[in-house]
């Protein structure tokens, strides 16, 4: 009886497999190289302007004197307040929807709507923020208004990714806890949440990283573009890194373009630090399983 595998067919399959792997490798390297080139270019452009003075000066008409202090502090304030609002609300909503909500039509309806909200363009959130927080709540063009607007923006993402993380916790763990006489809340608090924490953190970082980079909503609610002070309270006016970068990039002088590049480097640095912090926290919480 002839063997089902044709002689020589094996060779063709191997070649196709090798081709596939090579193509994937090519595209991966392409992406890495592109990113590398981008970062390299930006760094080369801006490195000359990156010094202590840059970080501690306010923007100015004179390129030599211009600095990023107000934008940096503005972004830090903004991000902290956004985290403060969005994390508890988002995670709590995810816990409620996953653990205590039903599985009926209402639940499906909420699911669809949250997914839709995650895809709404950020400028729409800007308009929403303007109407509700700036005007109706009379918060004016403050950091608070900006933070609340950004919170709304990233809330759907946080809820969705946290729900995924919670859903991934094996059902058997819950059953074990409940069978020991734990209430559903005790089960969530001591077992589900800790197990879902790495996933939730990843989602949080992704969401906050998005928030840092968004410009449109901030412009809508009135972040200023030329600010010579740092916010001292939540009700103060502010500017943010993306806005400052955009402002410099749109000036005709070449020095300002380089300043913009320097600003981008700072922005990237902030992102990296945030990611690193999240990775450390995740690593810690996974390692300390015996707690």
């Amino acid at each position, binding site marked *: 009886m002839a063997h089902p595998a044709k002689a020589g067919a094996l060779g063709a399959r191997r070649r196709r497999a090798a081709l596939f792997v090579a193509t994937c490798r090519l595209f991966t390297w392409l992406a890495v190289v592109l990113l590398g080139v981008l970062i390299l270019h930006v760094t080369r452009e801006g490195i000359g302007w990156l010094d202590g003075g840059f970080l501690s000066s306010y923007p100015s008409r004179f390129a030599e004197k211009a600095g990023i202090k107000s934008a940096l502090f503005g972004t830090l304030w903004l991000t902290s307040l956004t985290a403060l609002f969005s994390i508890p609300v988002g995670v709590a909503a995810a816990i409620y929807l996953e653990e205590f909500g039903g599985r009926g039509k209402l639940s499906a309806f909420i699911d669809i709507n949250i997914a839709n909200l995650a895809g709404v363009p950020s400028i729409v959130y800007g308009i929403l923020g303007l109407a509700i927080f700036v005007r109706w709540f009379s918060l004016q063009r403050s950091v608070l208004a900006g933070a609340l607007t950004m919170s709304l923006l990233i809330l759907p993402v946080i809820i969705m990714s946290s729900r995924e993380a919670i859903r991934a916790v094996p059902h*058997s763990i819950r059953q*074990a806890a409940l*069978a*020991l*006489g734990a209430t559903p809340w*005790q089960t969530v608090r001591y*077992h589900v949440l800790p197990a879902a924490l790495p996933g939730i953190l990843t989602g949080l970082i992704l969401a906050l990283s998005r928030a840092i980079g968004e410009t449109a909503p901030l412009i809508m609610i009135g972040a200023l573009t030329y600010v010579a002070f740092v916010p001292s309270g939540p009700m103060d006016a502010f500017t943010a890194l993306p806005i400052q970068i955009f402002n410099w990039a749109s000036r005709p002088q070449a020095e300002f373009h380089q300043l913009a590049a320097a600003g981008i480097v700072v922005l990237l640095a902030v992102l990296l630090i945030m990611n690193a912090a999240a990775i450390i926290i995740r690593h810690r919480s996974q390692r300390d*399983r*015996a707690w």
Partner: protein
Amino acid sequence: MVTPSPQPTARAADAAGSPTIIQAHDLSISYGTAPAIRNLSLEISENRITSIIGPSGCGKSTLIRAFNRMNDFIPNVRMEGVIEYRGANLYGPGVDPVDVRLRIGMVFQKPNPFPKSIFKNVSWGPSINGHRSDVDGLVEESLRRAALWDEVKDRLRDSALGLSGGQQQRLCIARALAMQPDVILMDEPCSALDPVSTSRIEDLLFELKKQYTIVIVTHNMQQAARVSDFTAFLDAGKLIEFGDTETLFTRPKEKRTGDYVMGRFG
């Protein structure tokens, strides 16, 4: 020649006269429109091992989950009839299901220790119920009762997930014992384990029955025959026969029971 057997005897003659600890009266449970248990009446005797056998889908798991109200978490469950624990209706108004589970514990088919330390696995249950004194002692005693202490006494702070399957299951048993329940329900506790681990757990059950009442669901008829004092045979949600194990396996009253234990179906 023999008189036709009456309704399946819900109470087998027990030579030592052990009292009834759990009693089901005319129990019917269905998931939506699909019935899982039909008009079942059964008495579980205290300090005895009762096994529940039957082909797949006969309702064994549904039945024991009803004993500790774990069915409460399944949507669309409807229940008729009464389950009594020491004479009190388990589903009566004002009965807290959490309270029920403190007295009636459960061990599951696939070992499911928490991803925490061995110590924390055993101590967690008591600690959330306000047990403060001598946690170390409680943990040690529970692990001893589960025949696991000698193997883990030097690594209580290690992760429970590093234990073998058989050890993990014994840890789950220790975890249940730490709650000092009256009754331990076991849903096919050995089906995911190798024969040596299975044998150890079966030996354990003999010791445990001195202090606890054990209800064990099993697919393995030899296990039911080896281990249990009483056996209930369920088929398609109905109790076909209930009696002391020896009788059920040497001269069962119902033909269907005989066919099942002889392996003719299921």
